[in-house]
């Protein structure tokens, strides 16, 4: 899966909560995000890309923006081979 394809899927989910979110925007700083959004993001990343997040992946910096999540997904997909 290309980096752009990963970002496109992440944008689709994020746009439901924060319609004007740019790839580099801090998701947790913009409006429209509630406390359940973090779980939604985790679930979407794990199931949407068929990757397993480890304890050390549960860090704000990996979920801060579409760019950050895309980098996390790419790293996990590469590790899975």
């Amino acid at each position: 899966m290309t980096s752009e394809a990963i970002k496109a899927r992440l944008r689709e989910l994020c746009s439901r909560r924060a319609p004007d979110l740019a790839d580099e925007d801090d998701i947790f700083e913009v409006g429209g995000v509630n406390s359940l959004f973090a779980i939604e993001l985790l679930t979407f990343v794990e199931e949407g890309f068929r990757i397993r997040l480890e304890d050390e992946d549960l860090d704000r910096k990996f979920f801060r923006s579409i760019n950050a999540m895309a980098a996390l997904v790419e790293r996990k997909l590469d590790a899975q081979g």
Partner: protein
Amino acid sequence: MDAWLDSRQSELQSEFRAFASSQIAPRAAEFDRQEAIPSGFLKGLGKQGYLATHVPSEYGGRGLDATSYGLLHEEFGRACSSTRTLLTVHDMVAEVILRLGGQRLRETWLPALAAGHRLAAFALTEPEAGSDAGAMRTVASRAGDDYLLTGSKRWISFGQIADLFLVVARIGEDGPTAGFLVERDSPGLTITPMKGLLGLRGSMLAELDLDNCRISRDSRVGSEEMPAGLVAGTALHLGRYAVAWGCVGLADRCVEASFRYGSERKQFGVSLDEHQLIQRMLANMVVEVRAARLLCLEAGRLRETRDAAAIEGTLIAKYFAARMANRVASDAVQIHGAEGVSSVGPVERLFRDARVMTIIEGSSQIQQIMIAGYGKAEHGARGSGSE
């Protein structure tokens, strides 16, 4: 067999119903009257395999799928909502440890929670902060290898007897929130019972005062850098699902009682259930319970498939089921007449318990705000095309 369940789920449903109806329901009025459930009785639920049932077997749980987990709460909710509440809050703590706690905390706590050796309570709400998590004042300050927790928590279900508290607090005055496991005998923790509730009287609420309560850094759940709201959101996501199913059980109990009373009580020469205005109420009750149950089943299916839509599905199920339980319990009181407002029968307690459901694990108004947000994203986008 229920058409929505597979054979394993049906077997479990029968097991849960047999246990709850024989071991819990007969004592529900006593728990309500005494505003307490004996600690030994609650810990015994673990020994019999009814605590932290969603936890995988490698940590001592039964590894129940989401639907079976819901069925357990339905049957406990039918028998006694106060006892069901223990399952819910205890399991919310187990859920956070399971999902976010890391291997060390999982191995330390989950087997003890599943076996009932320790009872757990979830400490989120504060005197000045309920749904508004941003107003949370409880602070965890670093002190060498420890944290010092300072603040107050209120309306903590089973706080009177819990051995372990999952306390949500800020790291520093303006920092992000995190979860901390606080044992009952921790220095600086004072527990004060809260009495006089309208419903769920057996849920043994307490207020917690934390005054420089010292806990080790190892007691923090997950890292300090977890995404905002993850601890509270993880706990509430399970709690809302459990409460929704509990509401279905409570309301179904109201329907059963109403049909029984309606067939026994005679007015104007015929049984109550032959009067069309009573039939109207009974019909609405049947339909309402079934609708709520289908929403719970849908939420369960979404959880089992790890679909991100499970968040929205759970909110909708809890919102509808809690309001439904109020309507159905109210009609049950009406059908029972004077008996409905007396403690001689179960519906007076069921009515009081139902009233609490639109408040706990997020008020119905909070659920509405979030559901409206999801609805806007879905329907707003769909409606943006040309017409």
